[in-house]
């Protein structure tokens, strides 16, 4: 019973696959973050029009969506690991899992609205 409730909220229900997804999404997020940091550092006195044009670029939209999906999956696996490690009460843990899931989905929808509104 307890074991099943531990597994139902894991991303893939398979520890090795979760581990792999955690690494792949980490690399995607790292590349994206380094790109954004590089862009901001190389554009001193960044203005709205350059910034807007960057994110309106179709390639950048794909890159940004890739990052956001990766961030969501990465955060999901990370938070799942932490909750299952530290929260002993199954019912309390389930609440944390559900709240995290709903928050990540809401953030994702919000992000799509921001990027596709351009």
């Amino acid at each position, binding site marked *: 019973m307890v074991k099943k409730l531990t597994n139902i909220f894991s991303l893939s229900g398979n520890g090795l696959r979760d581990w792999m997804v955690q*690494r792949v999404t*980490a*690399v995607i997020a*790292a590349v994206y*973050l380094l790109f954004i940091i590089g862009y901001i550092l190389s554009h001193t006195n960044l*203005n*709205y*029009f350059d*910034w*807007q044009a960057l*994110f309106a670029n179709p390639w950048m939209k794909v890159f940004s969506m890739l990052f956001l999906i990766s*961030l969501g999956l990465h*955060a999901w696996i*990370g*938070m799942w690991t*932490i909750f299952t490690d530290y929260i002993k009460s199954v019912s309390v843990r389930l609440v944390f899992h559900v709240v995290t899931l709903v*928050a990540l989905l809401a*953030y994702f929808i*919000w*992000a799509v609205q*921001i*990027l596709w*509104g*351009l």
Partner: protein
Amino acid sequence: MNKQRPVNLNLLTIKFPLPAIVSILHRASGVFVFLLIPLLLWMLALSLGSPSQFDDLQNTLTSAGMKFLLWLFLSALLYHLVAGIRHLLMDVGVGESLMGGRISAIVTMICAILLAVLTGIWLW
């Protein structure tokens, strides 16, 4: 497993070597970044909304409180990135030994502190 084995879970008497601190901070920074995702999205929405919203955001970020919050966020994010790269290197077999783990923990800490200081200089 021997159920009678001595167990010490007292956080005040457990010794935390540097690799343990680097590891727990990787988790803590991950949680912190997760909690601040809404702040990130709010800044993204404002910065891409309109020229006046872009200016509003820039003005908001000049206040000391917001600057400090942004510094905390960026420092945690960069820490998570550096400690994450350490993990990825270990996954491909680099620095898996006890000595390697200790050395990479020191390097991670130095890099993260340096990046936090540089972020502070850049923000102020």
